[in-house]
């Protein structure tokens, strides 16, 4: 039953125009970034490695598909939540707006099954968007710029990864990005269960993300205590897969916190939806 319901939900999602906004945005933005990197990438790379170039001769192709993908993933994971919220916020509120809630409830499916299928569909949409980003940035990037070694510039170190040591890191990084974006999706669905219009949940989701990011950025003792519990604190932790050695403890902690958030948001949505008085 869940499988059929999820299939229906996915059909509903992909029939809507707004679903494709995210794909179009990535489809336009990533080639634009590729073009910018094609024209200016070498200069940018020279600029960031200027300190090293003063004393060393650097040989090899560092401006390659891997580096471009790393930069794009860095830049876009901050902005993708909006594209996720755009669709996820409509999953429950959209039914209210369209007046199809009552119709949905009168069918021989439980409210739990409805919420679960919507959650699964939302997460599938999230994964497909991140996958599309991976295809656009990594595959297209490799086609345009070719392969090479990946230079990762961290605040405290420069790490150079060999060609054979990169792909698995990207697979895990994109998987992690899917997980962190799924938290955003879950939060948007939770807000979506509270109202009857998708605009509110979209704005609320983005507001929560912005507030959490600001709290994370403030270097004040009292806020430091809250920081480990904010999911935004872990959104960029996909970068841990580009550490040497891998900080597995930090990765496990991040995955646990993000999964816990999804579980909490799902349970809260379920509880709200079970108690909801359907009037439309």
């Amino acid at each position: 039953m869940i499988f059929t319901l999820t299939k229906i939900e996915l059909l509903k999602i992909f029939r809507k125009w707004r679903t494709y906004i995210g794909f179009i945005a990535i489809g336009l933005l990533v080639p634009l970034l590729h073009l910018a990197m094609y024209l200016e990438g070498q200069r940018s790379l020279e600029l960031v490695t200027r300190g090293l170039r003063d004393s060393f001769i650097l040989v090899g192709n560092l401006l390659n598909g891997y580096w471009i993908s790393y930069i794009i993933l860095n830049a876009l994971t901050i902005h993708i939540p909006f594209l996720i919220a755009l669709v996820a916020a409509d999953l429950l509120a959209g039914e209210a707006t369209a007046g199809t809630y009552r119709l949905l409830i009168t069918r021989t499916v439980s409210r739990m099954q409805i919420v679960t299928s919507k959650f699964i569909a939302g997460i599938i949409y999230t994964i497909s968007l991140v996958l599309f980003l991976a295809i656009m940035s990594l595959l297209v990037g490799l086609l345009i710029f070719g392969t090479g070694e990946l230079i990762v510039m961290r605040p405290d170190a420069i790490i150079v990864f060999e060609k054979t040591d990169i792909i698995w890191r990207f697979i895990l990084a994109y998987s992690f990005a899917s997980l962190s974006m799924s938290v955003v999706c879950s939060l948007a669905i939770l807000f979506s269960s509270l109202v009857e219009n998708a605009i509110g949940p979209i704005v609320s989701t983005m507001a929560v993300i912005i507030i959490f990011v600001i709290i994370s950025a403030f270097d004040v003792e009292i806020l430091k205590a809250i920081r480990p519990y904010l999911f935004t604190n872990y959104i960029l932790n996909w970068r841990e897969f580009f550490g040497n050695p891998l900080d597995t403890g930090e990765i496990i902690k991040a995955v646990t916190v993000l999964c816990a958030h999804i579980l909490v948001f799902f349970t809260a949505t379920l509880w709200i939806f079970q108690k909801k008085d359907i009037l439309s």
Partner: protein
Amino acid sequence: MIKYIITILLTFSFNYFSQVNKPEPILEKVKEEFNKIEDYQVDVKIKVDIFFLKMSDREAIIYYKRPDKFHIKSEGFALLPKEGLNFSPLELLNSKYTAFYEKEDTIKGIITAVIKVIPLEGGTDIILSTLWIDTKRNLIMKVESSRKPSGNFSIDLDYLKTSEGYFLPSSMMFTFSVDRSMLPKGFDIGNDSESVKTSTDSKKPKNGTVYLEYSNYKVNKGISDEVFDEKLDKK
């Protein structure tokens, strides 16, 4: 009065030792020795030991052609020190300089002449170089240089005799001071403030080392100028 006596004694002793061991002939012999090499190709293994740089050991091929053509070919990314890479004294000694014989010293059982060289022309970053020269083989065994603005560096060299009968380095250890200014800024959006904080104690310059191991020399076999054409190499 005492000051005058000391100055006279120092001047006398300096002149005496300078006459016994004049640095110019020693340096000229080193130049002559290196001038025997028209070109070479050598395989090099590179090991980088810098506190902020994590990369595995690399391999490259270095091509050299007189007077100053240089090319490095590497399958992947490689990082080589600019200074002393061609272990050629020509750059330093072909310009105007002044040199002082300092003392005799022993390095790895080899007796060397320690000579201080001060470049007089503005084309170089080097302020002062100290060279340890094996006067028997006319080879530079060690270099210590002060340069502006990037601080001091030293080069330790070991030699092998190539099949063609030339003495060329078998290994080179390049030691230099590094600080966080070499770390690039930007591109890593949302840098973790914790990691930045923990690394503030590394603001003080530390020593970095690059080890180069040379093998498979091909000396004076003739190298085409096209090898040094970077545009062709990029194709």
